[in-house]
């Protein structure tokens, strides 16, 4: 897992660099869930995994409008995960084809599983993407529940867009939206 980018070490020796490198582990992010020998850290015991660990809203132009993850976990990792998932989103959209684009379902389903997470996607008609990352150990979440989460998110997002003071394209800073997202997120214990 990605540990936090802690850089408290003063920079006076090359030695400190090596130490820092140790801290900057970026391992365990490969997408093959078939790896049996990768040791899983006891992360799952840390929270009650009922809901999402990361929720992101991404603009049509693929920059983040809103991204929120469970605070104790590494934000950076989720940023990377969400960003990478955009490729899959695009693939899925383009797979539908031009003619069918109108009847396309907004919910894209599971984008891909990583070792620890499942990434789900949803694309509005205006090509705004919603991405929800859930813990893959979380078996209680059914497809239907994910779907309803997305629908809720979409509704709330529509409300944000309806706000005349919201400038489309700006990052979302809405309390209502925040609270909707927070309700969907795993509460960090």
């Amino acid at each position, binding site marked *: 897992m990605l540990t936090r980018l802690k850089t408290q070490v003063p920079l006076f020796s090359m030695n400190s660099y090596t130490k820092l490198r140790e801290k900057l582990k970026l391992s365990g992010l490969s997408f093959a869930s078939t*790896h049996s020998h990768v040791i899983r850290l006891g992360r799952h015991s840390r929270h009650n995994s009922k809901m999402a660990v990361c929720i992101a809203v991404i603009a049509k132009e693929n920059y983040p409008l809103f991204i929120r993850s469970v605070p104790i976990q590494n934000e950076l990792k989720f940023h990377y995960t969400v960003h990478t*998932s955009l490729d899959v989103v695009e693939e899925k959209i383009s797979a539908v084809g031009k003619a069918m684009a109108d009847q396309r379902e907004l919910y894209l389903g599971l984008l891909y599983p990583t070792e620890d997470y499942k990434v789900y996607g949803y694309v509005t008609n205006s090509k705004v993407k919603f991405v929800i990352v859930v813990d893959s150990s979380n078996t209680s979440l059914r497809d239907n529940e994910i779907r309803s989460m997305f629908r809720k998110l979409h509704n709330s997002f529509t409300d944000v867009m309806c706000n005349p003071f919201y400038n489309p394209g700006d990052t979302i800073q809405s309390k209502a939206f925040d609270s909707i997202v927070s309700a969907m997120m795993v509460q960090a214990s």
Partner: protein
Amino acid sequence: MAQCVQSVQEFIQDSFVPMVAVLCSEDAEKVTRKNNLNFSELLRPFCRLTSEGHMRDPSNQLQVVKNLRISVNNVVTRPTVPSSGVPGHAHRRLLSEVVLTCQPAEGGVANVITAGDYDLNISATTPWFEAYRESFLQSMPASDHEFLNHYLACLLVVSSSEAVPVEKFLKLSQEQHRIQHSGEYTNPKWFIPNTLKYYVLLHDMSQGDEQRADSVYEDMKQRYGAQGCYLLKVNSRTAAAGADEQIPDPWSQYLHKSSLQSQVQLGPRLSVPSIYLLMYRTSEVDGHDSEEKGDLDNTHPLQLDTPSDTPGSLDALRAVAVETKPPPLATGVAAATSHGACLTLNDHDRIRLFIQEFTFRGLLPHIEKNIRQLNDQLVSRKGLSRSLFSATKKWFGGGKVPEKSIAELKNTSGLLYPPEAPELQIRKMADLCFLVQLYDLAYSCYHTAKKDFLSDQAMLYAAGALEMAAVSAFLQVGAPRPYPAHYMDTAIQTYRDVSKNMVLAERCALLSAEVLKSQAKYSDAATLLIKMTSEDSDLRSALLLEQAAHCFINMRNPMVRKFAFHMILAGHRFSKAGQKRHALRCYCQAMQVYKGKGWSLAEDHINFTIGRQSFTLRQPENAVTAFRHILTNDSQQTSTQQGAFLREYLYVYKNVTGACEVALPQLPLPCINSSATRVYFGHERRLAEGEKQAATHVSLDQEFDRDLAAMWQDLEEQVVAAAKRGVVPATFQSTQCCLNSQTDNLRFPLAVVEEPIIVEVVFRNPLKVPLVLSDLSLLWKFTLKDFNRPQEDSVGDAVPISNEKEASVPRARLKLLPHQTGQLNILGLVYNLASTSSTGDTINSTAASQTEAAEGTSVRGRQDLEIQGPRLNQTKEEKTSVSHGPDRRLDPTITPPMPLLEVFFLQFPTALLCGEIRKAYVEFCNMSRVTLCGLRVASTHPDFFTFGSSSLATPLTPLSPTSFENCSAYKTLATPPGATPGSVAAVTLVSEGDFGSGTGLRGGGIPLGEGTLKPGESTQLPMWLRGPDQEGVHEIHFLFYYESAEKGGKISHRVLRHTVFICASRSLSVRATACRSNTLPEEEEEEEEERNGSMLVFVDVENINSSEAGVREFHIAQVSSSSKQWRLHKCINPAEDKDCKLTSRERGKLCFRATRCKPLKKRSAFPFSKSGVSSLQIITSTTPCADFFFRRCQPLDSLRPPDIAGVVRKCNEVDLDIIILWKAFVVEDNKQVILEGQLHVALQTIDKEACSLTQKEEAQEMVLLKFKPELPPPMTRPSMEQLSHLIKTNLQYPESYSHPFNQKSLCMVPVTLTLSNCSLAQVDVIIDLRHKTTSPESLEVHGSFTWLGQTQFKMQLGAQEVMRVQLRACFLHAGVYNLGTPRVFAKLADQGAMCETSQQTATPALIIIINST
């Protein structure tokens, strides 16, 4: 996966080649050593056969073998790699070294891939990966389940210089046999029990006897057959011959790798440190050799004679080099000429021929024979049924019962066949076929073998067979069957999970990925590669991840983000594997995707890593750039994170700049709000100096106020107009002392030499951590320009004057003092930047942070100040585009010296009573070295002050303020004795021009002694102030204008601003009314002019001062008037002899009579008439009284043509100004102070009250705006009210009249009706006597009287004509009668249309008729 140089077929072919061992005698070794090569190295460049070979397959078909390569290696009896799945340490070293040395070429060709809105610059090839793959495959350990890299043949090499070469051959042959069959060595492994032995006689042309060699060769041919031996002649280059011959060096591309490999082969014998040393050795030698070569080139070509000595010297050098520094990176293979130095091109050809001979005559027939043998065996066995085969296997299984594998093999799950097991024979045959490109046959053999192994549950063997089956299926010409990808997957999984042999799994994955790539199955390839990444090898994971990333980008729909993400993962693994360069490259490539797309957290992370990697790779510039990005972009990181970034940046930055102070690099922090930069020209102001109070002027501490600026500009325009005789020059530009974003910065500002320029820079800290700036100074450029002045000594220097930190809006002011004229450009800012200590106390005091900065990491850098001008929005083009105008704030032109005025105020009050007159002093001081002249002043309140009359040259009050103590500001005159105070009305005529003409008031000149101020000179002038009429706080602005005595400078004039705040408190309120007096002048004999004009003036004076404690009482000292037509006569107060005193809230009334005086011809002269109430007469016609009077009242000239309205109005106009001079007794600090003041009342209309205070208008209530068509302007028609004042009537009659009614019943009284025309026009008058008195009651009571005679008169009165009409009233009874019954109608003579208006009746005229009996 990146593109490769080789095609897939080539790659796979080259991965599996026939292996040939070499056993070399010592003498032969020596011969090759001359070339700095061993025998196998000598052969290596020629191991690829250029010509086609032919062989027959088991079915006797002739097959072509194309492009065959063989691998020749020295026999090494130690295992290079433990045959377990884990590669050894040395092996890893080798691989990492290979990858390390293979770096992308600097500025190499990169192709641009456009995916969506991304344009990525990615190198299409990854040579390091290919190098890695090649080394990896070459160093594959030989294993038991496959035979591909087992030795097929052995070259026995003996030198011709050997005493008995044949004996030596025998020895070597025995040696080979011993190695293969004694069982002492598990390594190397041999393909077939009877290995092909090929005897090579090596002849050194430079040394040995050629004939002897030939004879020995003949002997050998006899013994071993012509096909089994060879005479190789080398080293034919003689010392003299080849001096200038250019020999290509085919070894260079092989040798580096091979030398590494040989070290690795040596490796396990040595302890770990020595491996390091060896590694360094090679590169060191290389480096040295190239150096040596350079030397040789420089000295003499003859020195090439001694190449044979080189090895020895090299050895010595190696020993030396061992303890020196680590190798320079990527030296490449520089030791070009030292290899094969004794070989001519002929020798090269000989070697090539040798290999060809060996392969075609020796190796291929040998293989052919063996395939045939194996095939025969298999065919013979085919007779047995499969089931029987397996049954026998079970029954006679003793031989092939799975032996318990030894621990390090870890092949716990599978069988271990003995070497001669029949299953392995198939495999062996398959491998042989594969090596000689018989892929059809190979595939069917592998397929069979696979089935056998699987049925035996020999998983490792099965996996091997599967792998090779898949490969050979792929390589089959014409591809009769599709590539079985699932074979590969199974193989990989088996290798990895069952056999735990990662090396084999990796090989398999590499092959599979390459095949998939060739079939454009990038997604599958990527998955495969990603699956192969694991914790155990960072280097492998890194390389595979990178390849996976390339797969993603090469897909039909490029997956850019996946590419980037995997690049980051690869970069991370590279850095873990110590491949910093590769790591950096990966991050940089990934950066292209993340850059500027809003993923700031990821971007920061990448930038940070790039920064670190660049720094460790000694590319500090790049590191600095990367760190800059983290800091400049609005970071979303936490404050601790930012602090860490900052510290790191500073550290790196410090290492970059080092001692280089000349061209300081730009610092990203803190942000400079460049548009908020303010530039101030001039000295800093010291506002108070003792009791002197300097003019406030402009200072940097003031906020810019648009209204104020406009006001100042307006004032300046006025004063300039006044100075230029009423015309503002076209080039006029208002002086701007302080430039900011709102001022007009289009022109180059003008600064004066030797006067400082202060630049205020506003910083913004984008981080959440404090920054410390110190040692700020300005960076500037100066161009000398001669403005007709000799040049002076030195140019200005930058002095930091303040540095404020951590304030809410931190700003710094820096001063620049120009010493010469020219053009100055302020370019930027140089400063030290440091972060505060990480201890957490962020808000340090200045001192603390400075000391901290001194010891902590503080770096020096610059930031440019570039100010963007305002956006242009004039033309259409400008409106549609975004273009900005210039801003020249920071480019002042330094002009020759100008005078510099300093104004001080002495005894300047802050609070005044309304109308109070106070005297203060102004000191003008010329601070410069240039004479000053043309001093003028303009003010927003010109009625507030006066410098006295210019005509009365002698100042009336002492010039020095010291003697001023309770001395009246007014000039007084003792009343002549005998004259009753108040009764005298002295008249003085004063010209208005003496007190500064009306227009001259604004921007008036200041009376200086000689009109100039010499350098350093100062002069004091008295100044009278008069409290404003309105109570409250008044902001009064002065603008002093002055010029240089030397004309023609760039700056025409300079100004000095001053603002004072005066608090005015209420004093007296004066209301005055004028009434027409109906009485005729008492003295009939007075001048004709006066007969008509006489008025009563009532002056109501009220003390409205609210501070009872301060002001005790007011005295009305004098009342003066000023009018062209009227003059005030004596006071007709009831208590006229008393002083008029008013205590708080008291009200007094004064009455005066005013008479009309001769209309004066001189318009500008104002007669002052006085009607004092105190004994001392104040001369009101002098300074300051008159000054303030004139300043106050702007005579309104009725310039309009005399229309009827004007004419009518005129008759009601008074135009009399009354000046009330007062004294106030004020207690101040237990001392009684007498204050003096004056109030003005302008009487304009009769019967209309005028007040000294203009009543404050009630704040108008908000009215809804209504848009209506505008009403036509009302007719300028005089109102009835005005018209009724045209004629003044007066009845003259005796007050009482005695009449003996007894004698005469009718009493006739003569009454004179005086009609005086008030207007200046002819008036038609009708007098009607018929009317009854208005009040009917009086009629009843008193009876009536009648007018006798003519009852209606019609007449015409000229302008101001007085006419008397004699009337007679007839009374019947005694009594009191009102005579005021005549009605007078009047109309203007020429206005026929107008009807007559009834004129105001006079007061009741009562007459008493007494019956005198």
